[in-house]
């Protein structure tokens, strides 16, 4: 087999081949180049690019040393100021993330430094109004607080011998694992209840 470079562009493309070439260009424009751009390869030197490729290929190149999650607690009318953990599955049925609901996914945003305060306020208001609708005989929510728990990997509390993995109960974890992110009180969803969440 002789590869003849002079015949590289020999002959016109047929209409069908031209169509195929257009699809190829669309693929490069709308799939391949966004993937390259998002992976940072186009913005970096060759050496950095190699490192990035290796990281993308290996996905997890560093050992995870802590496992973090968010908890939501509430104080109820007549609850003597006790914080009671809210089960988010009582308020959301869409379980998109294994045994977690889409509200658990939204909680990730509640920890963001920029958007967190507004997300927490909207979510607390929504939880208060939904709690009133779903559990009309239950006392009303007065305060909602958001906690972040960071557990060091390897801890006994994280290991469960069988069944799907569940988070340890908040009461059982050491206090130094727990950090309060924010509290929203009923002053922020009082009689003039309005929310910026989409209606």
């Amino acid at each position, binding site marked *: 087999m002789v590869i003849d470079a002079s015949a590289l562009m020999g002959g016109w493309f047929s209409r069908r081949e031209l169509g195929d070439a257009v699809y190829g260009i669309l693929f490069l424009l709308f799939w391949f180049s966004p993937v390259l751009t998002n992976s940072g390869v186009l913005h970096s030197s060759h050496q950095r690019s190699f490192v990035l490729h290796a990281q993308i290929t290996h996905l997890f190149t560093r050992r995870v040393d802590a496992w973090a999650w968010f908890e939501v607690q509430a104080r109820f009318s007549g609850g003597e100021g006790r914080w009671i953990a809210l089960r988010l599955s009582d308020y959301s049925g869409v379980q*998109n993330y294994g045994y977690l609901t889409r509200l658990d996914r939204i909680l990730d945003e509640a920890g963001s430094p920029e*958007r967190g305060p507004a997300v927490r306020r909207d979510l607390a208001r929504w939880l208060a109004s939904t709690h009133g609708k779903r559990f009309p005989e239950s006392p009303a929510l007065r305060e909602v607080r958001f906690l972040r728990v960071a557990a060091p990997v390897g801890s006994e509390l994280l290991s469960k011998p069988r069944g799907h993995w569940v988070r340890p109960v908040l009461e059982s974890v050491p206090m130094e694992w727990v950090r309060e992110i924010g509290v929203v009180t009923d002053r922020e969803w009082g009689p003039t209840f309005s929310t910026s969440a*989409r209606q």
Partner: protein
Amino acid sequence: MKRVSVMMIARCHLVGEQSVARFRLFELVFTAAFLLYMGRNLLHPMEWLTSEGFHLAEGLQRPNSLPPFPLMPVWVVPIFVVALFGSGWIVGFRPQWRRLGFAALALYAEGVDSASAFALNKIYGAGFIFLLFAPGDEV
């Protein structure tokens, strides 16, 4: 001696005539997987698609996500279900009409609720856009 140009090799591998059977198989499996994926969210359609569920306000989504699309009134939800499974039926049994199909639905699912749309949803959106432009009407 037969001369083989670089372009001929490229044509063999990248463009030109290919059997449509593999493409058709991919299209069917991709569509079935998408219907399963959407069907799981449809177990709780009101929370997912209407204002009954919690939806982040505009500006509170993750950076790089689509601007939020409008939520549905309750009466549109059955139409959405019919459109979804109707598009699945088209891909399966009337492939010559499949250009009417899924790309818009996958994009809507991405925009209406970023909390239930993760990377898989983006892959479906992009995949159906490519199927929209794909050759192979004769299958």
